[in-house]
């Protein structure tokens, strides 16, 4: 790899790379992010490689291993370029057939995606409802780029925005452009990014400044940052380069959690390649501008995603937040001015600089741009969904997500992780924006979207998040540490049938005080799951307290299993029961001894006749 010394050399390299593209030859694209590998993409890659080598198809079929494409429900999947044919849920056998068909210029029809709503086979990825209703500004690149190859990124227009900015645009003009784009922080709080940059650019410090990419993604059920880092690490690097140029910064840090080994690997390789190419380090593209990025691995504390705790962690100290002010931009890492942005925010920067702020503002209807959500839970199409700001929640859930996974309807959707709240189905027409979510008592957060159906108990959900927070609170400030513990205790009481109406009152009082007095964002937003469920699902709380019943059939202390007349006496439940409390003669209706039953639900999962009721 030769080090580039000027923008002209970069342009020459680009032109050279374009000339090597051979669009006429079909390319097998296999998504192999962490999720893809877990569902078997490795096997597909091995099969494809073996077939290509064995049949000597190197010049007839190309292979590209990429990061996650986002349709997790259908993985391991394969995309064929340039036809855009999509094959879901493949096995090695299917892979083999696809390679053979491709060599003959054919398609394997029986392996195509089957749309359950219309009952038709869909050939092209872009016609599948899951993809059709999205606008993939950021995620689309994941299909096109081999994350381990910087040339792949450059071929797709990568680093062009940076090279252009470096050559033609003044730093102040870059900040103005970001300001005009209306981009707001994608990590949770939604602070205007341009304004943050301006603060850092104005902060004077002879000893240097820092910019940080916050990749400490810890919300349960959220993984969009991971997919971006794994699938397109160079877009983050380019975003940080533009940010560093605009704010006059020379050092950057990517703070990524150690639970993301593949992301760390891809980042390390990407940084190395960028350095070798001359896009990182001193005197970048001969402009005299120098910037380098290092990776800091987090040790797995949720609270380190909070910016002041993150900075302490980078310094090598215990990850504990501190009171702001002073803000990081006044006093950050080692006392130097520091700017912290989320992965997705950084990934948006090259898009803005390439297409211009006007086009970006035009993408969303309320706030500008797109937002990636990780759609998980009781929904048909789980996966990463990128939609313009202002899209109604209903569209995300039903048109893209395909609606509920089981027969019971969607009751609520939990957004924003432990700091967010539950949005009930009555508010699904609400457009996605920072303001509307806040009004509903939740936040967009980093973009987790957990779908819940009628079989989900909202008290159980609130308890789950409170349990998470009680363990993940750093413990420094008293109201957060004790508040989360006490809140969990109160919820535990309610779910075990010991609750009183006094509990609800106390919970509300405690929630207000936690919001008011906790030091950092974690403690201040910790009561949100409780407050939002109390607001929208108070009847469930009352059912637990007054009637001692759990309407969703989840809280073990309040439910009982019984066998109805559908029972054929097959004995499957009796065999699986770990407590041995199901009795009955062969071919006769069985009975459960409720006193000794541990309510594990194993009998219900094996019964083929819907003979076991939860009461």
């Amino acid at each position: 790899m030769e080090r580039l010394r000027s923008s002209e050399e970069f342009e020459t390299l680009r032109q050279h790379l374009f000339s090597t593209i051979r669009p006429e030859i079909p390319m097998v694209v296999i998504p192999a992010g962490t999720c893809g590998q877990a569902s078997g993409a490795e096997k597909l890659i091995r099969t494809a490689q073996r077939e290509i080598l064995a049949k000597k198809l190197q010049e007839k079929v190309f292979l590209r291993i990429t990061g996650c494409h986002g349709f997790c429900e259908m993985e391991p999947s394969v995309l064929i370029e340039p036809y855009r044919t999509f094959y879901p849920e493949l096995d090695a056998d299917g892979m083999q057939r696809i390679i053979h068909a491709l060599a003959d210029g054919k398609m394997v029809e029986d392996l195509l995606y089957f749309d359950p709503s219309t009952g038709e086979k869909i050939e092209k990825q872009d016609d599948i409802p899951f993809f059709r209703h999205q606008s993939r500004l950021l995620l689309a690149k994941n299909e096109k780029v081999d994350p381990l190859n910087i040339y792949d990124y450059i071929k797709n227009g990568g680093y062009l925005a940076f090279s252009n900015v470096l050559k033609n645009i003044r730093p102040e003009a870059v900040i103005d452009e970001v300001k005009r784009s209306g981009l707001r922080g994608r990590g949770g709080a939604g602070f205007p990014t341009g304004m943050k940059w301006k603060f850092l650019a104005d902060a004077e410090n002879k000893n240097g400044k820092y910019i940080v990419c916050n990749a400490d993604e810890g919300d349960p059920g959220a993984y969009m940052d991971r997919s971006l880092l794994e699938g397109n690490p160079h877009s983050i690097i380019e975003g940080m380069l533009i940010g560093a140029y605009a704010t006059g910064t020379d050092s950057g840090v990517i703070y990524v959690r150690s639970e993301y080994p593949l992301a760390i690997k891809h980042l390390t390789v990407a940084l190395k390649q960028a350095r070798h190419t001359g896009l990182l380090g001193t005197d970048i593209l001969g402009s005299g501008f120098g910037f380098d990025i290092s990776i800091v691995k987090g040790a797995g504390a949720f609270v380190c995603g909070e910016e002041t705790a993150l900075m302490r962690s980078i310094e090598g100290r215990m990850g504990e937040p501190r009171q702001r002010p002073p803000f990081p931009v006044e006093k950050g890492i080692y006392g130097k001015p520091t700017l912290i942005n989320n992965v997705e925010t950084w990934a948006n920067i090259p898009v803005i600089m390439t297409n211009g702020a006007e086009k970006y503002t035009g993408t969303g209807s309320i706030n500008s741009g797109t937002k990636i959500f990780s759609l998980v839970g009781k929904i048909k199409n789980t996966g990463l969904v990128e939609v313009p700001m202002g899209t109604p929640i209903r569209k995300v859930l039903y048109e893209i997500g395909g609606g509920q996974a089981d027969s019971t309807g969607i009751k609520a959707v939990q957004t924003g992780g432990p700091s967010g709240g539950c949005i009930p189905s009555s508010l699904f027409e609400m457009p996605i924006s920072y303001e509307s979510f806040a009004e509903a008592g939740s936040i967009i957060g980093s973009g987790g979207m957990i779908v819940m159906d009628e079989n989900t108990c909202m008290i159980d959900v609130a308890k789950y998040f409170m349990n998470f927070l009680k363990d993940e609170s750093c413990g420094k400030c008293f109201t957060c540490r004790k508040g989360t513990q006490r809140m969990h205790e109160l919820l535990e009481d309610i779910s075990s049938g010991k609750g009183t109406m006094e509990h609800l009152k106390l919970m509300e009082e405690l929630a207000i005080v936690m919001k008011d007095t906790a030091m950092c964002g974690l403690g201040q937003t910790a009561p949100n799951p409780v407050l939002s469920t109390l607001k929208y699902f108070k009847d469930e709380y009352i059912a637990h307290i007054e009637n001692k019943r759990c309407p969703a059939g989840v809280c073990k202390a309040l439910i009982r299993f019984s066998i109805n007349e559908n029972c054929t006496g097959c004995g499957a439940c009796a065999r699986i029961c770990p407590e041995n409390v199901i009795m009955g003669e062969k071919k006769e209706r069985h009975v459960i001894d409720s006193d000794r039953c541990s309510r594990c639900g194993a009998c219900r999962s094996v019964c083929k006749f819907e003979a076991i009721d939860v009461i």
Partner: protein
Amino acid sequence: MITLTINGLKVQVEEGTTILEAARFLGFPIPTLCHQEGLSPYGACRLCVVEIGEEPKSKLVSSCTYPAEEGLVVRTGSKRVVNARKMIIELLLASCPQSKTIQDLASAYGVRRQRFRQEHEDCILCGLCVRMCSEQMMAKAIGFRGRGKERSVGTPFDVQPDVCRLCGGCMYICPACSLRCTYNEPDKAICNACANLNPPCIQKERFNDLMCYMSPCVACEIDH
């Protein structure tokens, strides 16, 4: 000089003064548990919260860590502040019911009921001992470990570190410790930091030039 308004009074203070210092200088009482002159502010106990800014955008901040700003409007005893303090005291009382300091606070603020389940902790993790050890004694022998429920004060790996000079500063500063040192009953020790230490009277050869702050020290009394 910075001008700010505290409870309607316009005051001028030096730059770098915290709201707590300014308010106390004017004679407004603000209760604290984790604040001590001579140690850096920490903001752990949250008792010193005050309301800043104009409604409805006002917010509560810990006054011990918040620097005075030009034109800041502060209320140290608004309804919101008092309600928050009462709840904090109720939480404290439920966790450490035997502490005299906390009982006094509860009585002063009229907290007469305790709706949470009773616990018997003593340490409220105010961090005074940790800061005393590192900032005044320059030893850094004790520190915080764990997070959330598991957080505690102690020495690394629960052994006496070489840097500990057995000055007893941690016990001196701890409101709970200094009232009833439980050294010779490690099970009852409050923060478990001192439970790993030998009193200086036992290791006189090593530490003969140090003053001992352990007073009253049960171990000492037994030894003599």
